[in-house]
């Protein structure tokens, strides 16, 4: 990986409150990477795959994905990203959602999600989870997307 490439964080989250809380806690963990926030799936997909400054064209990224989106399910985005010929198949995806349904979690991992985090209502736990995620983000090596 090229050192000069900063890892962009792409957050796909329809709830602005959640997005704000996630961002705050990531920052509190000392992660200062740029965060791109999308409120719905269509725009996010477009950015991910087609935008000139998006991860498919330009540099490594990490995706924070909510499963409940107004226009599509986060599962669809996950599926497209982790498809066999996708340039983003190695891009880490952290699924962040309110569902703690076992089947749902298993499905996400089966589709290639790297981490699955349940948004707990207990805020301390939540904040801690996000901060740990931030620590995790600061140490992981994110691969370059396939530029083919």
């Amino acid at each position: 990986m090229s050192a000069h490439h900063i890892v962009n964080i792409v957050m796909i989250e329809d709830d602005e409150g959640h997005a704000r809380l996630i961002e705050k806690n990531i920052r509190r963990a000392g992660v200062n990477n740029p965060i791109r926030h999308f409120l719905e799936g269509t725009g996010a997909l477009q950015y991910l795959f087609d935008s000139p400054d998006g991860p498919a064209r330009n540099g490594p990224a990490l995706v924070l994905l909510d499963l409940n989106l107004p226009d599509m399910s986060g599962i669809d985005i996950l599926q497209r990203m982790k498809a066999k010929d996708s340039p983003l198949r190695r891009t880490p995806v952290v699924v962040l959602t309110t569902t703690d349904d076992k089947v749902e979690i298993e499905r996400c991992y089966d589709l290639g999600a790297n981490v699955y985090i349940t948004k707990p209502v207990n805020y301390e736990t939540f904040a801690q989870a996000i901060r740990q995620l931030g620590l995790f983000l600061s140490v992981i090596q994110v691969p370059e997307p396939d530029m083919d």
Partner: protein
Amino acid sequence: MMRSQRRANRVIFLAVAAGFVMLAVAAVAVVWTFARSQDYGELVSHTIEVEGAVADLNRLNERIEAARRGFLLEGDLRFLETFEATAADIPLQIERIAGLTADNPSQVDRLARFRQLTQRYLTLLRSSIADKQAGGTGVSGASLLDEEDITIVEELRSISDTMAREERRLLVMREAEANRSVYVSTVVAIAAAILLLIVAVGTIWATRRTLRALTSTGVQLQELNDDLESAVAERTSELQRANAEIQRFAYIVSHDLRSPLVNVMGFTAELNAAIKPLNELIDKAEEVAPEIVTEETKFAVREDLPEAIGFIRTSTEKMDRLINAILRLSREGRRVLAPEAVDMNALVSGIVDSLQHRIDEIGVTVETEPVPTLVSDRLAVEQIVSNLVENAIKYLKRDRPGRITIRGKKANGRVLVEIEDNGRGIDPKDHERIFDLFRRSGSQDQPGEGIGLAHVRALAYRLGGTITCESVLDQGAIFRLSLPMALAPQQGVNT
């Protein structure tokens, strides 16, 4: 249709009954005819016997005459022997005829006369023999055949002829009578046979008609049954759809409710976090410029804000627990049940073991009696029983030693599990309510959201069972779980 059917049935019944009556009549007629012909045969043989007897008598009379004549003419003693033997036979023969003709007064009269004449005749004959023995010619008068002798013989002959004729006449008369009765009974039998034939044909026709009607009714019934089955299947699938809809609704609602709750909690925490710098600011201001810090500000930051945040937090936490409960219930409803043979004794002892710590802590006596094995979803049964046992432990009375009994039995193809405790009991007015979601009974001195029993009831219903409560306040409670012996396997997931 029903009435005509009933009438037809009655007609068929009457026809069959009439047929049997005809059969009986024909049989009686045949038997009667047979008896008649047998009677007739007897009569014929009787007549012949009488005729024979009369002929025998005539022969004897002739023989005795011949013997006398021989003796009279030749004086040979052998003739005398014959005479005596025949004289002894004649009365016997007369008595035999008397026995045979005792039923006919005219014949009896004739025979009496015959007997009289014979006696006279024998007397005459004996006197002539005595005369010969005495040395005379034995022929008193002119010849061997004196006048009286001849008259008697002739009369005897005529009487015997009359008797034979009378028997003949009687035979002819009786024959005619027998023929007539045989004719009558034959006619009766034939008529009965014809009627029987008609009844039989009619009955066969009617029975065939009834059978055809029965077959078509059966077909109709089958169709109706099929219709009913498909109607039931339709309703069932409707119900399943509705149920699935409710489950999905509960799932979506609870799921979507969590989302805003995350925000409420999150930003409440942010507010809470903001209290700290504010507090520091007030502390610093009190130090540097105490005049700008009013009591109101201090109170707002140090009392009001933490209190408000505290309430918001406990309320949202509670709300979260409730939503989670709904989520869990809806998830349970969507789970596919996997029936298997469940060793209830092992299951119960497993539950007791898992609660052993609390049981020892409070000092509860738990008695487990054998519970029959059943085929059901192990996890669901385990959750039900474990919830009930936990409740029994949880709501014991502090002032008396706890005692919990778990027992089971088979009844009408179901397994009944009872969990009895001597705890604080449940007010009878709450016996239904306690099974409702978020509803609790009695003093609220134990933690809980009122979810356990709602969960238990939902599970029991899913397993095709029921759960009831019997309790008097302060006197313990018995929870009765009734489950089918075998739970039918499920067809797919109903989501």
